């Protein structure tokens, strides 16, 4: 396990869906931004297909859905800087940390309970 201390905070938002295929990611990020705007300390966990949201170079695409990449860029402005992804999930897509749009910390699946326990509230999308 990596040496960094896992985050604690008011709200943990778990994102489990890839961009574009559904609106889960977008609406989950919206919830995170609103919570941050209300002064809560927010942590994001990208899990399973959700890790694809972090991949660099995403655009709206030919189908015309709104891209989530600009929303991810806004996270820092809302002081949401505690970002985690599940290492195995990222590796399962053949991606490495160098492929990510934002600085996020990889955690093993076994560290998820600690992350859950460190937050007062959890919303899953």
């Amino acid at each position, binding site marked *: 396990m990596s040496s960094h201390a896992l985050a604690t905070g008011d709200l943990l938002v778990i994102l489990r869906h890839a961009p574009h295929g559904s*609106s*889960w990611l977008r*609406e989950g990020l*919206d919830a995170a931004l609103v*919570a941050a705007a*209300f002064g809560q300390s927010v942590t994001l966990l990208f899990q399973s297909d959700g890790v694809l949201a972090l991949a660099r170079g995403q655009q709206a695409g030919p189908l015309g859905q709104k891209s989530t990449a600009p929303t991810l860029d806004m996270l820092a402005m809302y002081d949401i800087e505690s970002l985690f992804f599940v290492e195995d999930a990222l590796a399962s897509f053949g991606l490495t940390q160098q492929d990510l749009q934002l600085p996020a910390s990889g955690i093993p699946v076994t560290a998820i309970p600690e992350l859950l326990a460190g937050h007062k*509230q959890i*919303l*899953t*999308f």
Partner: protein
Amino acid sequence: MRYALLVQGAPYSSQASHSALRFASALLARGHRLECVFFYHEGVYNAARLAAPPQDEPHLHDAWCALNAEHGTQLQVCIAAALRRGMLDEREASRHGKHGHSVEPPFELTGLGQLIDLGQSVDRLVTFAP
């Protein structure tokens, strides 16, 4: 205990609404209080006032309204998730120049901030999602 529910599944498409309603009646039967049900994502369709399911199926919209009438449970619908899916109350319909409306009291369109507030103000916020 004071509870709130977050419902994110569309009625008749997923089990979320059915399970949430069962959970609601169970907690009320135990003497707990259900402050609010918040509808987000595709859960906003639960507020469709024109829902007309076959008679041999549970009427989910009416079941939510009964929760409000009998227990004072607030029924709040995320306005951003609702508007883009065509779920408009009378005020929003007129603001957007639409004929007719699809949401009416006791459901109320409200901001996502209400969900965040709920999370802080109740003892338990339980999510029902597909």
